[in-house]
């Protein structure tokens, strides 16, 4: 920013950004590398906010579960890529929003296009399953699945659907011929049931 006009434009953008966050009830947003330290910091921050707001123990536990699994999905999968492109080095966007009736946890990270089919199939399968089918799949995967080199157990999506009881909403947006941006959002009802 080499002159006053640019600074003013930037600050106006920040205000628009702030208003936009407020309008979408976003309480936490982060872009960058998702490490274990980040995971710990965000979960403990959200946890203390929820405790302050007297959110029920049940809702707090579910939000905590979903946040951990979403953050670990990015930290464990986003650097599977060999590309040196900054998009692929364990980075992503992470945001939490809090509405009147629900919390939502959204992640976005770059994926190679040849992963889209596998991800879509996995998410569609999980979304269609009822409680008992999910339970069966979780047990099967726990018994038969192997821990990946990064420590992923392939259980994250199943766990999110089981804990929230809601479908995982997702979307792929093209970045280039080979890559897309993968967005995933999970909602947790604030009704204590």
């Amino acid at each position: 920013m080499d002159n006053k006009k640019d600074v003013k434009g930037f600050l106006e953008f920040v205000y628009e950004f702030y208003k936009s966050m407020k309008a979408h009830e976003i309480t936490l947003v982060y872009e960058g590398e998702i490490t274990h330290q980040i995971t710990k910091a965000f979960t403990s921050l959200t946890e203390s906010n929820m405790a302050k707001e007297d959110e029920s123990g049940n809702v707090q536990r579910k939000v905590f579960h979903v946040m951990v699994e979403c953050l670990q999905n990015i930290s464990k999968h986003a650097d599977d890529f060999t590309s040196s492109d900054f998009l692929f080095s364990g980075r992503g966007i992470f945001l939490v929003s809090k509405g009147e009736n629900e919390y939502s946890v959204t992640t976005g990270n770059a994926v190679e296009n040849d992963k889209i089919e596998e991800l879509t199939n996995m998410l569609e399968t999980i979304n269609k399953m009822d409680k008992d089918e999910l339970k069966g799949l979780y047990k099967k995967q726990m018994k038969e699945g192997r821990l990946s080199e990064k420590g992923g157990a392939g259980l994250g999506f199943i766990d999110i659907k089981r804990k929230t009881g809601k479908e995982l909403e997702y979307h792929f947006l093209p970045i280039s011929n080979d890559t897309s941006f993968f967005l995933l959002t999970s909602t947790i009802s604030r009704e204590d049931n």
Partner: protein
Amino acid sequence: METIKIQGTEDTPKVTLDKETELMEISGRSLPEDVASFYDPVLSWLEEYAQDPNPKTIFNFKLVYFNTASSKLLLDILMKLEEIHENGNDVLIRWHFPEDDEDMEEAGEEYADIVDVPFEQVPYSG
């Protein structure tokens, strides 16, 4: 044999494995950065213990949270205990859960379904 005592942290559980006092417990939160290396000493300890176990083994799980990667390692521990039981030894798993935490209670039920070993669900308040 050697006693294992690991202090709990915000992301790793407290672990006590003591053959002499017969105290075996994993409690707290489990979302270690590297789940395999965290549980490796626990599994090795059980491996050695299985060679010459106490006449009765009571293993306590008192977790308030564990992530999906940990759930797999917890199953590995339970399978080790199942093996000790299969070899003709007395083994009891005590699965403690906060009384208002249905998910933790259900997790215990699922493990009890998977492994063939006496399993007791223990609700606690607080």
